[in-house]
């Protein structure tokens, strides 16, 4: 497990950071993009790190920066409020933790304000940023197909959110109208790099509460009485690829133990975790288990996962074997089992 928390999104200032000069003071001309920083944007993009803007400029300055740098920005906060608040809004909009943000600004005052308000954010000067590409926080061990397409997936996610705001009807009806397809299937060796990446990147939806080395995941694939399942998600807006997984340990008598349950934050609110928990219960019941048990960290960060467990009927049990800060949640399997939503397919199961 790597100790550095990976940066998922870099938030850039415009004036004298992304741009060589000050946007408003240069009008009607506009300052060129800093070529070194533009190169940095492209390099980080290839590593699956996305970019956003926080600037004291009108919104058209962000549009101009996208053209000038040739880079796609997944969010732009243009205004005169505190930059720490802009960063918090960017993180909330992307459903990621503020601790997964880095912030680059030439102004020491702005860096100090963000650093004081959001101590988990990596705060950098433009000079620091050039060096930071070598730091572990900016160097994911593997870069998967999902990672390379990440900026586009956030853009499609934004379009989906706008469509949902305009949609009148239940959330389930919306998922159906989007032609949501959730596919649950046994993991193959080809999935190991993405499973490793997912285990390192997920924080809100990771029942293990930490990353898992690729070798450990590969070893689980062949382990006796162990199943590793992947969850893929697509709809008419985008193919999100592999967004979730779980490991089931069948060695206990009549209990399906789940040492790892994880899902990409990008898939939140799209029926994925609920489908996986419903499928888990059905699978466990068919194998003769009386209960499913999921150890889960109890912290502010794990609230979304605890909500999904509560919704699926899991309850905390006293378990001496649970590590500190963690609780085992258990779902006793009744009959009949709830049916899987019609958008879930499980190849290999009738």
């Amino acid at each position, binding site marked *: 497990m790597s100790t550095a928390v990976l940066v998922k999104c870099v938030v850039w200032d415009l004036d004298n950071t992304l741009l060589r000069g000050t946007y408003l003071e240069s009008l009607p001309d506009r300052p060129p993009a800093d070529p070194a920083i533009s190169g940095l944007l492209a390099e980080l993009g290839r590593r699956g790190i996305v970019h956003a803007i926080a600037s004291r400029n009108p919104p058209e300055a962000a549009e101009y920066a996208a053209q000038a740098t040739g880079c796609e920005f997944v969010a732009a906060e243009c205004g005169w409020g505190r930059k720490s*608040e802009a960063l*918090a*809004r960017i*993180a*909330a*909009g992307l*459903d990621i*933790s*503020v601790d997964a943000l880095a912030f680059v600004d030439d102004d020491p005052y702005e860096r100090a304000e963000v650093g004081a308000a959001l101590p988990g954010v990596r705060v950098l000067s433009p000079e620091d940023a050039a060096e930071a590409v070598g730091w572990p926080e900016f160097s994911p061990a593997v870069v998967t197909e999902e990672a390379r397409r990440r900026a586009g997936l956030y853009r499609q996610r934004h379009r989906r959110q706008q469509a*949902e*705001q305009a949609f009148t009807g*239940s*959330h*389930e009806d919306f998922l159906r109208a989007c032609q949501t397809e959730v596919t649950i299937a046994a993991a193959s060796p080809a999935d190991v790099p993405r499973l490793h990446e997912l285990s390192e990147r997920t924080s809100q*939806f990771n029942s293990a509460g930490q990353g898992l080395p690729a070798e450990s995941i590969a070893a689980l694939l062949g382990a006796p009485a162990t199943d590793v399942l992947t969850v893929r998600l697509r709809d008419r807006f985008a193919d999100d690829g592999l967004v979730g997984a779980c490991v089931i340990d069948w060695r206990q008598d009549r209990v399906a133990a789940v040492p790892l349950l994880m899902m990409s934050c990008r898939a*939140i*609110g799209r*029926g994925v*975790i*609920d489908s996986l928990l419903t499928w888990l219960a059905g699978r466990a019941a068919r194998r003769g288990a009386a209960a499913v048990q999921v150890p889960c960290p*109890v912290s*502010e960060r794990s*609230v*979304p*996962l*605890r*909500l*999904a467990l*509560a*919704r699926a009927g899991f*309850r*905390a049990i006293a378990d001496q074997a649970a590590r500190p800060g963690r*609780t085992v949640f258990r779902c006793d399997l009744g009959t009949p089992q709830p049916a899987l939503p019609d958008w879930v397919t499980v190849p290999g199961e009738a």
Partner: protein
Amino acid sequence: MTGPGRPGPAVIADELRQVLAAATGRPELAALTLDTPLFGGGVGLDSLTGTLLLRQIRQRFGVDVAAEDLNLDALTTLGTLTTFVCDRVVPDQVVSDRAVYRGS
């Protein structure tokens, strides 16, 4: 106990209806009855809308439901949630304006 500066159950239930309607984007939830299950068919609370709801409750009432309720039983119905919040609300914490969603 309802006293000056301390909102009673009816006020809190109304606030929670507003928060639920906003979190789910379904204005009809503003007329929710107290016995409606929040996770089930009635409201269909999930990880996303549930996280928004709990965050708003913390901002507006100063009550951290997830920290105090391991199994999140408070989210059984609107009535159980109202009681839970009502028993713990700190009067000074109540924000009457729509709280701005700022993330975590």
